[in-house]
C-alpha cells in the first residue's frame, strides 16, 4: 500500500487571506520568526498496490481537475515510501 501526497498552493500572485491571518496573529503571540505565511492544502491519498506510471498520470489528472483549481492554484504530486 503506497501513499501519494498532493500539495496544493495558491499561486503566489493570488491574495491569501488565510495565510495573512496567521501571519498577523503570530507576532501578537510573541512569535517573530515569520516574514510571510501562505496556507495551502495537503491531500494524503492511499492507493492499493504499486504506483504505476498509468496511475501517476491519473493522479496528475485528478490533481489538476479536482484537487486544485488551476485558475488560482498550483499543485505538486509526491510519492511517499
Amino acid at each position, binding site marked *: 500500500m503506497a501513499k501519494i501526497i498532493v500539495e496544493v498552493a495558491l499561486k503566489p500572485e493570488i491574495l491569501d487571506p*488565510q495565510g495573512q*491571518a496567521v501571519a498577523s496573529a503570530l507576532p*501578537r503571540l510573541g512569535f517573530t520568526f515569520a516574514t510571510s505565511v501562505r496556507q495551502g492544502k495537503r491531500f494524503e491519498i492511499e492507493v492499493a498496490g504499486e504506483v504505476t506510471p498509468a496511475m501517476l498520470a491519473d493522479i496528475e489528472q485528478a490533481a489538476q481537475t479536482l484537487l486544485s483549481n488551476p485558475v488560482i492554484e498550483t499543485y505538486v504530486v509526491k510519492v511517499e515510501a
Partner: protein
Amino acid sequence: MKIGVVTFPGSLDDRDAARAVERAGGIAVPLWHGSDDLKEVQAVILPGGFSYGDYLRCGAISRFAPVMKSIILAAEHGFPVLGICNGFQVLTEAHMLPGALTRNQGLHFLCTDQKLRIENNESMWTSGFEKNEEIVIPLKNGEGSFQCDDETLAMLEGEGRVVVRYLGQDPNGSRNLIAGISNARGNVVGLMPHPEHAIETLTGPSEDGLTFFTSILHQMVGR
C-alpha cells in the same frame, strides 16, 4: 444584573446577544477583545460570528485575546460563561471545554430552524428549562460538527455534560448529535445553535432561546 458580551474583530451576533440579555431583563455590557477588563460583569457571553475571519480554525486566534485570559481565570472559579457558535469554538480552542468543532459533514454552511432537546437542565444557562424539553432555535454555521475521542465522549455522556442534543435529521455529523456541552462544574456552556435569534417570533422561529438568558439571570439572583 450585568452580563458582558465580548466583541472580537469579526464577531457578528454580539448585538443580538446583547439584545437577548436585555430582553431577559439583564443589563448587557460590551466587552472588547483587546482589554482584560471584565467591567464587573457577573457572567460573559462569547457571541457568534467569524472572529478573525475564522480562516485558520474557528476560534483559534481569538482564544489568545487579552479578554480571554481574564475569562479563563474567572471561569476556573465558577464564573458563568456561555459560548454560542463561534463562542463555543473559542471555548474548545481555549480548552475550557473538551472536543472540537469541525467542518459540517455536508461541507456547506447551514442555516436552519433546528429542533433540539435539553438534556441537562442543571447547568447555569439551562436551569429554566424542563428536563428533556424540546425547543426550536436557529442553527447557522459552517463548522459545527462536534468531534472528540471516544474517551471524552464517554465522559461527557457519563457525567451528564451533554446539555443540548440535535433532534430529527443529523444536521452536521456531530458525535452523538451533540449540540452543546458544559464543563464539569456547569458554569461554562458551549452551544452551536443560536438562542439569541429565537427571542421573539417576529424575527426568529420561536421564543425558546430566551430561557437560556433568563436561566442565568435567575441563577445569579439566587446567589
